[in-house]
């Protein structure tokens, strides 16, 4: 159970729904798509503030960009950081 309210896609108002849909429409690797087809948990974690959600993923999503590291190498860094924090993400 989440510790704060999470607004799911199906119950989202227009502003949140727009951000959720924009997130789902991003051209990202399949590995970042949640199996259930909706916005991933880390996205929905921000649901109480759609503008925060939009700005956050615009900024942090820049990690996808760059030619110097392969996708696998980016994954290695990400997974290593997450494991060190004892987190699945």
């Amino acid at each position, binding site marked *: *159970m*989440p*510790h*704060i*309210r*999470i607004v799911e896609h199906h119950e989202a108002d227009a502003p949140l729904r727009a951000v959720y849909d924009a997130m789902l429409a991003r051209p990202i690797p399949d*590995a*970042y798509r*949640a*199996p*259930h087809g909706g916005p*991933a*948990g*880390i996205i*929905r*974690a*921000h649901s*109480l*503030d759609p*503008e*925060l959600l939009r*700005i*956050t993923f*615009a*900024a*942090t999503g*820049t*990690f996808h*960009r*760059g*030619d*110097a*590291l392969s996708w696998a*190498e*980016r994954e*290695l*860094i*990400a*997974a*290593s*950081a*997450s*494991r*060190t*924090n*004892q*987190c*699945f*993400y």
Partner: protein
Amino acid sequence: MDRASPRQRALFDFAVTLTEAPWSIAAADLDRLRAAGLSEDGVEHAICVAAFFNYYTRVADGTGIEFDYDSPLPRLSIDRSRAPLPRPPPDTWNPAVDGSRLAVFPRRAFAQPVLEQWHSYHFDRDALLSRHERRILARAAATELCDPGTVAAFDDAIPRTPRERALAAYAAKLTLTPWAVGALDATLLRAEGLDDPAILAAITLVAHQNTLSRMHHGLAAHGPRDDR
């Protein structure tokens, strides 16, 4: 990591160090990445990836959302009682590290505008949490991140009320032991009058500071590696 290439090993070690002991990142760590074949673009990109995932993990832990990806990795067993690494004393901190300012990545200029927007959204507003409370959160996180610039820049942000002390304690805990943050920690904030939107603001600001301070540790890395 036994069968990893030197480059993979270097990336792994870098990510682990920037995550658990960012204050100890030294020029030698960056040189090791370069020796493994990373360009300067690659070094900056590696810093960013590791720093951003220190954001995501803390938001996941702070909000308590479930993990909903398929993962090929073995199931992680979490030791919630795991202790954080001890922090070195302030007189050893790198004076060039100032996470109160946005980090500049010379080879990632495309990201600068959205990073600025992100930083501004957390600090240049009084909605949900006052500017002062936001600085309290950031300074408390920065103290545990051995970030002298932020600690000094926000030297007005000393907690004085129960609510402020609760915010500072939460920021320290989410920084030090994110794996130990749970429903009780959100309850403690609620007891000080924060509603869920304010709790989200606190979680994300602390997580944001964890990213920023690490970016600076990576970019300002200098000198010989300290013993950890």
